[in-house]
């Protein structure tokens, strides 16, 4: 079996769906002990390819080889038997089970009469955890631990099953910068121990820092495989998008005008613990500027936005929008007064997934006379409006306005939300993690839209965990730590390191907002 250096090979895979060729003659060869990145925009066919590898889809053409021998993978169990394991972007963990229980789920070691024998499982897990530097508390419940530790649990799940081929599906999308650093380190360790890793990502920095080789897909087609040592970000992004990509957002100096949003001593309760998630926060957003709230995930940013948008009531403090008090205004009132909100979680808040694209596009405006006349929806107007936005904001989908939102790629779902919120012509645009999980092409587009909104004289409140985005986009940076604003910075005069120090709670200064 050792006459081939490849652990797994997918040769000339073609997978068609009605109306679309998801994979068109794609070839990926994963060497033993390498980290092989799979790069592509949303909808490029990465997920389909992995589903083929996992036996969820059968390709129309092409073969899969393991150690040089052709194999047939009919279902995920076959993939598991071949030693292929995957960490999904959305974790597949049982929330109310412990870490250990999740790891052994499905392969529980049992003794006589089916009695669980957890002790030996625990030893194996602890040994693995030590060997690869995957620190977890085996007895903690999943619902109580951080996203990073949940991910380490997923990795341990694969290792516990002695998987040799590890697939990471956009593993950094949900992590903080520190956790990303740690994960990349773990991946290098795993590769050094002889595991073969397929790393699905569209974050070029991470691919550059961790991968050995990179295969690129674009619109279902295989573009090529390159050695990371012999390439750079610009080349990778060109191969992925098919054109040159701007990494630095081009923008003119800001021209702040009147105050759009005035937050005074705002306090918001936490849903998780007894303390307040947001404590006495005051700041202002002016028309024509982008104010960015930076911070590590879970420091009150979510609740801050809930408070401003009206999803959660304030414990104390006041809010005003364009000079009018909105402290107690209902959500609809805030929206019609000129507040647009690109939510953090597009599946939870942003979309009704089982509604069509057009019904989602009018989600904030369906009640306006243009779309509703004496209680009846004006379907024709909705269709026309949706078609315009789809065209203008380049939202791609299988069946246009009548596509079910659930079936769209994440990037296009996000584009639909952004189209909806921007086209409302707001006075204040709140954008929370607007580029989370998106590829460079989409990120570039969304960033340019946000800057365009600023230049059109709108106030923009951006909440982001990505420091690159914070530095690139904002005119003013406010750092949030444990529910308080601990520093205000000008992106031109500060550094990522300085921000990091404040984000981690190492330093603080008075903020006037």
């Amino acid at each position: 079996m050792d006459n081939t250096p490849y652990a797994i090979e997918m040769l000339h895979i073609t997978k068609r769906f009605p109306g679309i060729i998801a994979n068109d003659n794609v070839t990926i060869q994963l060497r033993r002990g390498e980290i092989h990145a799979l790069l592509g925009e949303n909808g490029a066919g990465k997920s389909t390819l992995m589903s083929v590898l996992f036996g969820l889809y059968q390709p129309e053409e092409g073969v899969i080889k393991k150690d040089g021998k052709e194999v047939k993978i009919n279902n995920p169990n076959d993939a598991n038997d071949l030693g292929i394991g995957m960490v999904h972007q959305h974790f597949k963990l049982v929330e109310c089970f412990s870490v250990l229980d999740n790891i052994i789920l499905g392969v529980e070691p049992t003794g006589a009469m089916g009695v669980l024998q957890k002790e030996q499982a625990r030893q194996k897990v602890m040994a693995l955890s030590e060997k690869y530097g995957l620190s977890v508390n085996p007895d903690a419940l999943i619902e109580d631990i951080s996203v990073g530790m949940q991910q380490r649990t997923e990795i341990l799940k694969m290792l516990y099953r002695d998987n040799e081929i590890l697939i990471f599906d956009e593993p950094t999308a949900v992590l903080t910068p520190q956790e990303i650093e740690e994960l990349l380190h773990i991946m290098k360790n795993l590769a050094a121990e002889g595991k073969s890793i397929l790393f699905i990502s569209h974050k070029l920095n991470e691919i550059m820092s961790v991968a050995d080789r990179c295969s690129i897909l674009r619109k279902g087609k295989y573009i090529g495989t390159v050695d990371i040592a012999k390439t750079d970000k610009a080349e990778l992004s060109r191969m992925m998008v098919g054109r040159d990509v701007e990494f630095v957002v081009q923008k003119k100096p800001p021209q702040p005008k009147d105050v759009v949003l005035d937050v005074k001593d705002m306090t918001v309760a936490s849903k998780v613990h007894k303390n307040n998630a947001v404590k006495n926060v005051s700041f202002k957003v002016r028309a024509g500027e982008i104010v960015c709230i930076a911070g590590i995930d879970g420091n009150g940013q979510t609740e801050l936005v809930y408070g401003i948008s009206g999803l959660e009531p304030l414990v104390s403090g006041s809010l005003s929008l364009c000079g009018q008090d909105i402290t107690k205004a209902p959500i609809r009132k805030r929206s019609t007064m000129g507040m647009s909100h690109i939510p953090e979680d597009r599946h939870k808040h942003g979309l009704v997934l089982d509604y069509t694209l057009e019904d989602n596009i009018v989600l904030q405006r369906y009640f306006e006379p243009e779309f509703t006349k004496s209680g009846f929806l004006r379907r024709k107007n909705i269709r026309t409006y949706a078609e315009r936005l789809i065209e203008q904001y380049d939202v791609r989908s299988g069946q246009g306005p009548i596509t079910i939102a659930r079936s769209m790629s994440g990037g296009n779902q996000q584009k639909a939300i952004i189209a909806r919120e921007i086209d409302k012509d707001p006075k204040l645009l709140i954008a929370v993690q607007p580029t989370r999980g998106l590829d460079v092409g989409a990120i570039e587009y969304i960033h340019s839209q946000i800057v365009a909104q600023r230049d059109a004289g709108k106030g923009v409140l951006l909440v982001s965990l990505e420091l690159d985005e914070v530095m690139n986009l904002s005119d003013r940076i406010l750092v949030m730590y444990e529910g308080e604003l601990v520093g205000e910075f000008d992106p031109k005069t500060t550094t990522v390191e300085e921000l990091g120090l404040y984000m981690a709670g190492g330093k603080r200064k008075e903020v006037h907002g």
Partner: protein
Amino acid sequence: MKQENKSFGRKLLENDGFQTLLASILCILGGLLVGFIVLLLIEPSGAVSSMGAVIKNFFHYPQALWFKYFGQTLVRTVPLLMCALSVLFAYKVGMFNIGAAGQYVAGACATLYFALGLKMPWIVCILAGMAAGALLGAISGALKTYCNVNVVISGIMLNWIGLYATNTILATVKNPTSPYTLPVASVNPGAVIPSLGLDKLFNEKTVTLAVPLAIIVAVLIWVVLNKTMFGYELKATGNNFNAARYAGMKENRNIILTMVIAGALAGLGAALFYLTGIEDWETTMSAVPGMGFNGIAVAFLGGLDPLGSILAAYFIQHITSGGGGVDLSYYSSQISSLISSLIIFLCAFVGFFKMFILKRIRLSDEKKAEAAKSAKGGAGK
């Protein structure tokens, strides 16, 4: 892949509505088959004629009586359809209204009390029935929004509370010598729903305005769900509560309102049934009438579509009534209920059969692709 060369039959097969219809028919056939097998097991000699009676329903009788029995079947279809609408309306907003049974009972209670006790005209009695059903629905809805109590739990509780409260209240207007309430037609003729000549058409006095009214209500529910802003909001709330909230909809109000409407529909069903005088309420009843539960089966058999439910409700009532024609010299008297409940049970499998159909389509596709590939390969050599 171009698709324009698809045959009409193929397009039809891929249509969601058609698949539902096909699945419903498969369910019905499955139910009839299982029922037939049960009859065969008990007593083979009477199976064919009894099954025939179930399927034929009123055709089983002499021709002169066809219309009369057809009319009776229609009268009994009305409450079933209303309960099905109640279930599906709540289902579209993400709630499983098992409480339709109790709302139906509450509707019967208010309707009959207003008719017999207060001697009100029929229209007032109908409104009272709807209000009572709506009240029970509102309780479930309020418990859901304010205390996060699942509507299934509160619904089941309220079914029993409703039943015994009804028995107690209606005992005040019952016939002193029997457990049944007094006949509406003789105590308060003004409470009987007018028939506008329908009774003459069917030669059956219980056929009233209730029948066309029920169809109108079904169409109305279809319009509300599919064409109005209100329906858009309700379905959004049901599909994604958080997104509805984010979009500024009054999500709590929507939940309660949905249950109020669902309850009113079930209550209306009871009113449209008991105000025809076809049956009186039995005040010693110790189980909730099956109407609300059968409504669940009808709603699913009808593909969760108000218009589909019209057909489904009629079918279920058709075989239930037909069950009365089972030959009792071979079988015990409960057999007709057994047969119809078997069929109703199989009707819950619409989703399953739909999946089955989809799978068959996929398999045949793959086979064709395989065949095309090998043909291509052969030609190439």
